[in-house]
């Protein structure tokens, strides 16, 4: 534990606006440094690999048919209960696959808890994509079903 020191100012420094000038020097230096603004949407942000966008589905080339086995673990793990899965017997091989996979993007809080319990490791069927631009005109458009979960939703192009 150490007590913080309140600066002791000699009289001449208190009378003359020395520290004000020092402060002004700091802002002046910044005048000539490069800016840190990212001009979105012209400049798109560079996302890190682990960035958590909306959850989406994917397949794997080594696995025949759908990668998802409709085990419902992601739906159970979701705090917002936004995933709905309906299973059906697999068309290729044994086990189940998803007949209906619906994620309600309006409820999804992008927490990523659905990815942890997915059994198809290391490439999980459900993954957090890099999509974050999700504006829609109607609320029902947020209910995303399998085709859109695979391909990604329509992106609005920003033209300026």
């Amino acid at each position, binding site marked *: 534990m150490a*007590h913080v020191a*309140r600066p002791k100012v000699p009289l001449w420094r*208190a009378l003359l606006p020395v*520290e004000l000038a020092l402060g002004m020097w700091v802002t002046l230096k910044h005048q000539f440094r490069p800016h*840190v603004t990212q001009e979105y949407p012209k400049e798109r942000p560079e996302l*890190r690999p682990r960035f958590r966008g909306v959850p989406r589905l994917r397949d794997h080339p080594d696995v025949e048919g759908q990668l998802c086995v409709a085990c419902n673990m992601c739906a159970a*793990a979701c705090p917002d209960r936004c995933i709905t899965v309906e299973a059906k017997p697999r068309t290729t091989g044994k086990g189940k696959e998803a007949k209906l996979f619906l994620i309600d993007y309006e409820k999804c809080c992008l*927490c990523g*808890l659905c990815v942890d319990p997915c059994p198809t490791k290391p490439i999980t069927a459900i993954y957090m994509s890099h999509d974050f631009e999700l504006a829609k005109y109607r609320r029902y458009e947020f209910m995303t079903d399998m085709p859109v979960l695979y391909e990604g939703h329509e992106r609005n192009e920003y033209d300026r």
Partner: protein
Amino acid sequence: MFGPSEMEINLGPQHPSTHGVLRLKLKLDGERIVHTDPVIGYLHRGCEKLGEDRTYPQAMVYTDRMDYVAAFCENLVYVETVEKLLGVDVPARAQYMRVVLAELQRIASHLLWLATHALDIGAMSVFLYCFREREQILDLFEAFCGARLTLSAARIGGMYQEFPEGWAAEVHRFCDVFPSRLEEYHQLLTSNRIWLERTQGVGVIDGPTALDYGVTGPCLRGSGVDYDVRKAMPYAAYRELEFDVPLGRQGDTYDRYLVRMEEMRQSRRLALQALQRMPDGPIMAKVPKRIRPPKGEAYHVNEGPRGELGVYLISDGTETAYRCRFRSPCFTNLQALPEMARGHLVADIIALIGTLDVVLGCVDR
């Protein structure tokens, strides 16, 4: 009730300086504040009740959103409380990882505090400079867990993924630049006569009174009371790390400012130490897939950037908690606001809300 020259005005929930939706009813005598009545609840989302309906891993996302500025510290205290209930030993490597992330989160939170406090008092540029640093820390968090603000970075039993490639080097790069930036903030504010006039002698609260009110964190340490949970009841890997706890003397706004600035420096030191001393090994303990703690209760505290964060869990043996109670530091710190504000001018209230570092998500839950 009201004296002849007293009036009551409302610093409404919508105001640029109230750091969220805080409503203050100020009773004034002319220009001087006689009494302050904080009215809270505008951001209440029922996190504690929701915690009773969600399983233990699911309830962690609510902790992110309560004190959204210091999300990892909230995550950590919750996760550690569940681990206490389960009786699980977290591996050492995960403990050190948690320290690194918690200290980076502390720096980010203090940077936001400084930015908004300085902006409220009028120094606009400090706001932008602090956010430039905070962006770097948020980028680090994004690289680790994928989110910048609502992290959910800890898991019950340890950490769920390693630091990515090059993450430690990036932390070092940030820590190399950070002291010079702190120096810039000092040059802009610490000896600045306008800043001194606005913050010295404003909002004085002495140690015993602060303890009576239950104030914790930098507000308490600014009044000279040496209480830091990281030293008093060490958790994660803090027992093995060396750091100093800055204390103030007079308990005014300026002391709390100096304490937090010094804490930023100490956090940097802690983060570097933890990175350096991190042992190898597993990062996740053996935890069952469905977490069903035995019947019992546990309370665990943490040093958040704002004060003592606490979680009290009562388990009834099922997957969801019976009672999930969050002890929020901002809620108890806000109690001290009427004491601090008495006798000051209306223009000082803004400085006082800033110095208490109130985050309404934490107050209202």
